[in-house]
C-alpha cells in the first residue's frame, strides 16, 4: 500500500531533477534576454579598484592567474576587468600562473585584452572622464608572462628572492634579462602589489608564503564559494581587498566603467538566486503545513 502524498508533502520532497530543470530554463531565458541590472559596489572591491587606480604609469603589478578552465566563468571576467584597467593606465604587469591549466587562461586573456586595447575608449569613473588612446600591447614592455611551474608554495617563496630563480626565461622562452620591462626588477620589492585570481588553495600560499614573508599588498579575486573563508584575512590586514565571484567582477567592471561579461552574467546569477529562494520558500511552506497537519492528526 503506497502512502498518499498531499500537495504539501510533495512540496517538501520535490525530486531534485525538477529543481535542475527549472533552474536551467530560468538561466537560459535570462541569458538570452537583453537587459542590465544595476550593481551596488562594496568596500572590499572598491579598495582594490582605488589602489590600482592610484598607481602611476610605469609601475608594475603582479597578476597571478591561478585558476583552471573550471573556474573560468567566475574568474576570467575579473582578469579582463583588472588587466584592461591597468593597461589603459599604462601600468606594467608580470603574469604568473601557478595552476596547471592556468597558462592557457592567461594566454587567452592577454590576447583578447591586447585586441580590445587597440581602440580609443572613454571611461567615466570617480566623476572624471578618462580618455585612453588605443595602443599596441607589447610583450616584454607592457607585460611579462612567466608561465607555469609546479609546487606553487616553493615558487612563491622563490620569487621573493629573485624571479629568475624559478623563471630564468618567460613563457615564450625569452630570458628575463632580455625583456626591457624586467631590467632592475628582481623580486616583489619592485612590484606595487600582487593580485591573485584563484579558485583553489594557491590563495593560502600567497597569503602565508607570499604576503606573510615578503609583506607586499595582496589583493584577491576568488570564486563565490571561497569568499567567506578569506574575510578574516581582510580584517587582519593581510589582504587589502577581495573580489568574490561574478558579483565581485561585476563590481569592478562597474567601478571602472567597463561593463563586460560579469555584468552580463549577473542577470543569470540574480535570477538563479531567485529560483533557489523560491524553492527554499516552497520547501518551508511544505514543511510547516505538513508539521501542522501531523500535529493536528496527533491531537
Amino acid at each position, binding site marked *: 500500500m503506497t502512502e498518499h502524498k498531499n500537495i504539501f508533502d510533495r512540496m517538501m520532497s*520535490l525530486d*531534485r531533477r525538477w*529543481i*535542475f530543470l527549472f*533552474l*536551467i530554463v530560468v*538561466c537560459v531565458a535570462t541569458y538570452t534576454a537583453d537587459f542590465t*541590472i*544595476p*550593481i*551596488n559596489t*562594496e*568596500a572590499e572591491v572598491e579598495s582594490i579598484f582605488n589602489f590600482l587606480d592610484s598607481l602611476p604609469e610605469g609601475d608594475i603589478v603582479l597578476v597571478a592567474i591561478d585558476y*583552471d*578552465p*573550471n*573556474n*573560468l*566563468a567566475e574568474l576570467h571576467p575579473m582578469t579582463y576587468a583588472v588587466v584592461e584597467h591597468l593597461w589603459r593606465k599604462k601600468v606594467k604587469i608580470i603574469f604568473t600562473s601557478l595552476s596547471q*591549466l592556468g*597558462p*592557457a587562461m592567461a594566454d*587567452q586573456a592577454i590576447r583578447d585584452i591586447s585586441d580590445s586595447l587597440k581602440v580609443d575608449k572613454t571611461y567615466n569613473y570617480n566623476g572624471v572622464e578618462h580618455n585612453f588612446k588605443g595602443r599596441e600591447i607589447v610583450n616584454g614592455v607592457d607585460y611579462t608572462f612567466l608561465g607555469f611551474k*609546479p*609546487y606553487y608554495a*616553493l615558487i612563491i*617563496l*622563490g620569487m621573493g*628572492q629573485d624571479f629568475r630563480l624559478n623563471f630564468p626565461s618567460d*613563457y615564450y*622562452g625569452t630570458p628575463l634579462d632580455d625583456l626591457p620591462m624586467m631590467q632592475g626588477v628582481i623580486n616583489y620589492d619592485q612590484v606595487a602589489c600582487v593580485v591573485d585570481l584563484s579558485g583553489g588553495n594557491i590563495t593560502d600560499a600567497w597569503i602565508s608564503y607570499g604576503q606573510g614573508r615578503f609583506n607586499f599588498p595582496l589583493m584577491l579575486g576568488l570564486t563565490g*564559494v571561497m569568499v*567567506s*573563508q578569506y*574575510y*578574516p584575512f581582510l*580584517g587582519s590586514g593581510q589582504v587589502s581587498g577581495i573580489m568574490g565571484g561574478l*558579483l565581485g567582477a561585476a563590481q569592478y567592471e562597474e567601478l571602472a566603467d567597463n561593463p563586460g561579461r560579469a555584468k552580463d552574467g*549577473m542577470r543569470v546569477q*540574480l535570477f*538563479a*538566486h531567485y*529560483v*533557489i*529562494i523560491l*524553492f*527554499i520558500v*516552497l*520547501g*518551508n511552506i511544505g*514543511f*510547516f503545513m505538513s508539521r501542522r497537519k501531523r500535529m493536528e492528526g496527533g491531537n
Partner: protein
Amino acid sequence: MKRQLPFLLVFIFGAFMTIQYYVPHESSEFVYTFLLDWTMIIGIFALALGIWSLYHVSVDKIQHKKENWIYSYVTLFGLFIMVVFGFSYKVGDSWGMYPLFVIALMALLYCLIHASISRSKGFWLGLSGAALAVSFGVAFFDDSWKLAFMTSEGLKNTMFTNFADFVLTPILATMFALLAFFIASAAYRAFRARNVLASLLLIAAIIVMLRFNPYMPFGLPELVAETSSWLMNVPNLAAQRAIVIGIGLGIVATSLKVILGIERGYMGKG
C-alpha cells in the same frame, strides 16, 4: 631499523624546518631551498608511479571487462596522445607523415596493453615491435615536424592547444557548472526552519543571497546590503576565527606529534 629510519628522518628534517623559520641567514635559506628542490624531484618520480598505477587499473578493467571497460581505452589513449602532442611540433608548412607517426604510437600502446593481458604475448609483442619500428622510421625520415623534449616548442603544437582549448576546457567548465545545480538542490533540502537556530540560518542565507538584488522597494537594497555585509564581517568572521584558531592549534599539535614520532598513522602504524 627499516621502521625507525623514516621516523628519524622525519625528526631531523621536521626539527630543521622548525628552526629554519627563525633563522633568516643565507646558509639556512640555502639548506631550505635545497630541501625544497628535493621535494620537487621526489614529486616528479612519484608522478611516474601515479601514471603506472592509472595504466595498471585501466588495463585491469579491460582485461576483466568490468563495467564501462571500453572507456579505459579512451583514458589511456587520451593520456598518451597528449604526451605525444606536447613533445612534437611542426617545422614546415605541412605535417607530413606525422599522422602516421601518431597512429603507429597508438598502435604500439594498443599492442602493449594486449601483450600484458592476452595469452598470446609473443604475437602482440611482435606487433608492438613493428609499430615501434614504423614510428621510429617516420620520426627519422620525416623532416616536416620534430620532437622537442627539452624546450617548450611542443606547447604551441596546434593539436595540443586545440585539444586543451576545445575539449578539456569545456569539459572542466561543465563539471564546475554542475555546482550551480547541486547548490540549488542542497539549499532546498537543507534550509528548513526546523527550530530557532535553523530559522536564523535560513534568514541569514536569504539576506546574503539578496544582497545584490536591485529590485526591492523603499531603500531595502541598501538595508539588505548593509545587513549582509554585517553578517559576513561580524558573526561569520567570529565563527570562522574560532575554527581557524582551533585548526591552527590542531596543526601545531599534529606537526609536533609527527616530528616527535608520537603520531605514526601516516606510516601505516595506527
